[in-house]
């Protein structure tokens, strides 16, 4: 008998709070049981043919990008519009290993990510995330240049980051 690997990914995304949804909107999908709503940890996950790409974590805390690819269909577009282009949405992606009979094993790996944007093509919607818990490095927490931090800049200035 060949070694058998069966993996189901459970995608739970909570959109960033907005005026219309102060606590965000929750979307739940799984990608293994075709056209089936699956109960996982007391929550129901609809089927969606998505896949994940990219790294979840690295030793040096580079916080690399992880991508989730959906087909460019109506429900995935809704996912994007309700999540404000996937900005600051909160993703819990749980990888659940299955037995040969498609039952859940005791092994599951949850990953927590923050939405950093999305892109669209004619066939695919790509949601981009970075890990929300990352390795601690010398510049932790990472800071973003804002107008308040930098102040007004002349148009031809050069900025050196040290």
């Amino acid at each position: 008998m060949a070694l058998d690997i069966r993996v189901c990914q459970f995608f739970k995304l909570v959109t960033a709070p907005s005026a219309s949804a102060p606590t965000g909107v929750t979307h739940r999908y799984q990608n293994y049981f075709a056209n089936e709503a699956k109960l996982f940890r007391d929550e129901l996950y609809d089927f969606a043919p998505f896949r994940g790409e990219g790294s979840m974590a690295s030793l040096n805390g580079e916080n690399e990008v992880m991508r989730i690819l959906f087909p460019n269909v109506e429900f995935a577009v809704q996912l994007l519009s309700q999540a404000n282009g996937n900005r600051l949405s909160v993703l819990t992606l749980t990888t659940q290993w299955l037995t040969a009979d498609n039952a859940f094993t005791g092994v599951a790996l949850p990953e927590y990510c923050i939405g950093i944007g999305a892109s669209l093509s004619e066939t695919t919607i790509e949601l981009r995330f970075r890990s929300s818990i990352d390795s601690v490095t010398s510049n932790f927490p990472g800071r973003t240049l804002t107008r308040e931090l930098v102040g007004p800049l002349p148009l031809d200035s050069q900025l050196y980051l040290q």
Partner: protein
Amino acid sequence: MASFPSYAPSQRSFKPGIYPQRTYRSLSGVVTKRTFGNMPSQSALDLSFDNVDDVTVAAIIEHYKLQTATNRRFNVSSTTMGGISSSLLALANGSADNLRWEYNGPPEVQSVRPGRSSVTVSLLGEIRDPRSDD
């Protein structure tokens, strides 16, 4: 959804669906299989209608155009699957695996004599989409 026109084919061949699996073979020869889903798909049903009148051919081509233009899948009738015993019927027509049929390509028509043609049809069984398929 419109079923495939109810004509009995002269020849019929069937191939069950395949499970979404990818095989990896290590240097030691050990094989690992990764399964991506719980249902088979891409089953195949090839039908030939020999020396039928052109009205039948036109009906098949019209069905092909309609289903392909609207991107809808369909069932095959008991007439199309005639002669298959009940133990095999659900496996052959895709209902056991919740499959629906779509055209793998346009029907191929060969003229035989005035008003008579032969047509071959290749169908592909894909997992039923509950949002659009019957």
